Each structure stands twice: as C-alpha cells, then as structure tokens.
C-alpha cells in the first residue's frame, strides 16, 4: 500500500502555554479511513488544520515537525506548492458547509470550477459539455435524484446535509489523494448523518482516496473507520484497528470513553464515567490523564509515558511497560 500521509514529531503550540499537539506521529495509507477521536481541547482540529497547512502564520502559533502529504513537505512548502496541492491533493470538509461554499455562486459554478481546476492540473483540456457531464455524474454519485434542479440552486437554498453532499461531490471531482473531514456530520440530524457517512465511506473506497476523519463521537468513528487514533491533551494515547480498540481498549482513557456512552437503561445501573474533567493548560509532569485515571500509579507522573507497541497496537500508558519520552522532545 502506498503511504499518503506521514506525520512526524508534530508539535503545535498556541501562544505561550497552550500545547495543542505534542509529538504526534502516524501514517495514513491509500484507501484507508483513519479516525481521530478526542474530546474538546484534545487538539484534533489543530491536527486537521496542520495537515492541510491552514494554521495561522503568526507569532502566536509555533509548530515543528514534519507533515508529508504524498511526497510534499507541507509545513515548509511555498505558497505556490500549497496552491497546487490544495483541492486536488488535500481536500478538507469542515463542519459547516455554508462557510466553505460561496453564497453568491451557484452549485453548478462551484462544481464546474472544481472540475476545471482538477483537469487543468492534470493537463487535460475539457470543454463545457464535458464539465457539465462530469458534474452531473458527481451529483448522482452523492444520491441527488434531480441533479439538473440542484445545479441551478445556491447554497442557501439547500439544507445542511445537502450542502455537505455538495462538498463530497466537489471532492469526487477534484480526486484528492487525501480527504480530511473535520466533524463533517456534527451539525446534522442522525438520519442525515447516517446518509452522509455511508456515502463518504462508499466514495472513499470507490475513488481510492484516504480519509482522515476527525470526530468527538467514538460511536461514529467506530462505524466508519479502519483505524482509530485517540487523542488526549495533544498526545496520541492509543492507535489501533477499530475492531480491536473497541472490543478491547488498552488505554484507561479509551476504556472510559467507551463506557461513558449510554447503552442501557438507567434501571440497569448508573453510567460509568471518567471522573473529573479536562482542564485546559493544566500543568502536569507526566501523563496528562493522571488526575482522571482510575488505575494511576506513582510512576505515571515521573515523565510522559512513551507510545509503546503491544499486541500490534500502540498505547501510551505505563501499564504496558514503563518507558518515558525524553523531556527535550516534547514541547512545553
């Protein structure tokens, strides 16, 4: 399998003290769907932005490490290189499609532009009829039964779910290697969410893209992804295949997350929950999950545990071996 994305030692810091990501390392292969799961403040959106090189370039945002998308070093690329890779190389779907679509441009123009750009970059000449045909095929692929009617519409005339499908149609036309979806269905109703997710999965497999799916909802991730990465306080806590991670979570945080999802009636007993809460910018020497962990030991705060391989998975917890990250490699 071809490797599409490699993230190496990625650190992102906002301002003086907010460590959004710390020493993040992972790979993404062609045709794979990887879910980034984490609660608010875990750094999951920052990861999406960093990969698409959309982090603000100012003094407050500091980043180090490497993001390699399809052979291009994203974090050190020039504007020119980035321009050529955005859209056809990396395509990002955000939570709110209204913000990604231009309210003054019709759906037809949105999609035609996408197709024209992608053919231009592939040095293929296309005429208007071909564009229109491709656009209509793409709309049919995302389950619009009446593409001709939809083409004439503007984003505000469509619902959230429909607009999100337009975004997916745009991705189909641009054929990116890497699709990044940042909470694409959080604002949608469950029935629409189910529809968009089934569609997304189908398209990714059909068009042979790779998908990085960022979500706060472990249940959604478990239904869509091949692999799951669990983030907490900017650190990867666990990486593993969905089946194994869900049925036998290794990290106490992953266990807690799975148990927190209501499954039975209150008559069967109370919900298991993770005690305490995530405190932003809390200074903890060692495992960031220490204050909330049920199986904590003194070794946990001697240093940040390293990501160790056990049973073909990676987990950052001293239960599975006492090893620590070297302190100079983690951003303060």
């Amino acid at each position, binding site marked *: 399998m071809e490797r599409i994305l490699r993230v190496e030692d990625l650190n992102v810091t906002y301002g003086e003290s907010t460590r959004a990501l710390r020493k993040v390392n992972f790979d993404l292969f062609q045709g794979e769907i990887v879910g980034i799961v984490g609660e608010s403040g875990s750094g999951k959106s920052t990861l999406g932005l960093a990969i698409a090189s959309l982090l603000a370039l100012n003094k407050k945002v500091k980043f180090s490490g490497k993001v390699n998308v399809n052979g291009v070093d994203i974090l050190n690329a020039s504007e020119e290189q980035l321009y050529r890779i955005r859209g056809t190389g990396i395509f990002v779907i955000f939570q709110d499609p209204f913000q990604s679509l231009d309210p003054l441009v019709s759906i037809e123009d949105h999609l035609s532009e996408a197709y024209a750009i992608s053919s231009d970059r592939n040095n293929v000449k296309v005429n208007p009829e071909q564009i229109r045909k491709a656009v209509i095929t793409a709309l049919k692929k995302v389950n619009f039964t009446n593409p001709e009617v939809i083409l004439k519409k503007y984003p505000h005339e469509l619902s959230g779910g429909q607009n999100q499908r337009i975004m997916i149609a745009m991705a189909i036309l641009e054929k990116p290697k890497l699709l990044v979806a940042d909470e694409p269905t959080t604002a949608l109703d469950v029935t629409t969410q189910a529809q968009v997710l089934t569609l997304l999965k189908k398209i990714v497999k059909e068009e042979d893209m790779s998908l990085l799916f960022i979500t706060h909802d472990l249940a959604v991730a478990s239904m869509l992804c091949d692999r799951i990465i669990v983030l907490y306080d900017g650190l990867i806590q666990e990486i593993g295949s969905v089946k194994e991670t869900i049925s036998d979570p290794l990290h106490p945080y992953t266990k807690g997350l799975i148990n927190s999802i209501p499954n039975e009636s*209150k008559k069967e007993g109370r*919900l298991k929950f993770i005690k305490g809460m995530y405190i932003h910018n809390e200074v903890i020497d060692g495992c960031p999950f220490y204050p909330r962990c049920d199986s904590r030991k003194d070794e946990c705060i001697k240093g940040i545990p390293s990501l160790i391989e056990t049973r073909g998975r990676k987990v950052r917890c001293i239960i599975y071996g006492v090893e620590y990250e070297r302190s100079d490699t983690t951003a303060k």
Partner: protein
Amino acid sequence: MVLNTNDPILRLNNISKSYTGGGRRFLGFTQGGKKIVALEKVSLEIMKGETLVLLGESGSGKTTVAKMITGLELPDSGEIIFKQSKLTSRNRNSLARGKIQMVFQDAASSLDPYYTVFQCVSEPLFKSKDTIEKKVDKVLRALENVGLDESYLERNVKELSGGQKQRIAIARAIISDPDIIVFDEATSSLDVSIQAQVLNILVDIQEKYNFTYVFITHDFNVAKFMADRVCIIYYGRILEIGPSEIVLSDPKHPYSILLKNASPMIGKEYEDIDVMSPDEVYVGDSKLGYCLFYNRCRNRMEKCLQSEPPLFKLKNREVACFLYENK
C-alpha cells in the same frame, strides 16, 4: 390538592402552535410569509415521577413542546392542565411559578456570566422571605446534589467549564423544589465523559426527590438511558409513544425504525439505511391531510395520502401509522 399516582401531573390537550416564517416585517406587523406548523394537536400525559423523553430531529417541534409546558410561549389552541387545573397566562404565575423549571442546552447563555454561583442558584428564591442564612443553606444543598461543593459559592459563572455551568443550571432548577423539570437538549453540547456524569446526577436527584422529567433529546442512546416513556415526534406530530424498553428496542413506526438504524452505536455498522432523503421537505402545513412521513417511508400505501393517520392503540403503545390500524 392531593394527586392519585395514576393521575397525570401535567396534561397537554390538543395543543397546536404555528409560527410565521419569512415575510416582511414592518412596524411590528408581518406581511406575507409562510405559516409553519410546529405542533399539530399534540396530546400528552405526564405522570408524577416519570421521565418522558421527547425524541426527534431538528424541526420536529420538541422544543416547542418544552416552551408550551414552561409557558415561555402560549399555544394557539388547546389547553395545558397542571395538577388538575387549567393553566392560562393569568393564573400561571400563581399556580406553576417555580413548579415547572427548565434547563437549556447552552448553559453559558442561560446564566449571567457576571453573577457568582450563589447569585445564579439563589435567583429563583428572590421572592421568598427566607433569611440569607437559610438561602445559603438551600443553595449549598442544591449544589451538593449536583456534585459541587462550598468552594464554588463565590466563583463567577464565567470561570466555570461547560459541564460545571450545566450543573449550576440544574442546581438553579431544583432549588425552588419543582414538580416538573424540562431538559431541552441539556447534555448535547457536553463531552461524553462529562455527559455521563451529568446524566448520573439527573437520575440520582430524581430518585431522591421524585421529580418529573420531560427530557428532550435527539440522541437515541441518551434516550435509552433516561427514559421511562418515549415519545417520538416528527414535524409536530406524535408518531409513536410508549414505554421506553418496548419502543426503543422494538420500534414499530417506520420513522422510529429509521431513527434507530441511523443512530450511531459502538460496534454497529450502518445497514439498511434509507437513502431516501428529505430532499423535498414539508414545512408542516396542517391542511395537508396526509402522512407527513410519506415521501421517506418504505411502507407507504395509497391510504397514507388520503388522510393523516391518527394514533392507533396497540398493546401498550400508540403508533400513528396505517400499518397498525387493525391490530
């Protein structure tokens, strides 16, 4: 008045409510615009001490039910009977003030950020003649019930996290010793681990004080945990209502089945998803006179277009679908 345990504490009788959407507004008048029916002849009975979950998607009218119950808005027609007396805009203050409380989704905007926790939680007591010591005592007891301690009393609301704010909102709702608490998506903006804590608190205080809950949610799993009875609504109509263990594990209405299949659950895969989308959404016109779920329904029949299905009584639930007409 003494209530029998079998008597509903609150009854909604044929409540209808519609809003006017769009149109031009000028000098307080609205010209043109579309009539949007939020609720159409909804009748509900809420028993003392139970949790009734209203489950539905956006636009289903579940929040409108909450507004009717709490009196934030008045129904166009129909009556609300609280403890056997009809609530009107005139007598609501004397009969139901403090007795029907509400907790909103966004705690941050329902609490004054510059108030201290004590000011927030004691707000419903502003008319009581309690001494300040007694008020502090009451506030402390309410805070204890939601898992917060004394140290929070003098903190500003704006310093607190989302989960803590929601607890403050719950403490404020229970301090006036209400009969009914309406939760409108009270946990949907919280992280799952925090949501689990808050849901546990809600169940605990309900057992302790025998509160009646009306719990509004779009989350199937949360509904399953909280509910004694479930009411599934769609475009202002009740489609299915009954005990939660029956309705949620074996839904009968095609829409309830769709909701169940579409709800994300750990270890499940999406299958059997109706790809039929509400591309053409009805904005509930009460004069339509046919089943509003028709264009998304798999089991649709000729009959569904001719009249709107009423709630048919099954063994221990009611379903508004012609499939169950003679069962």
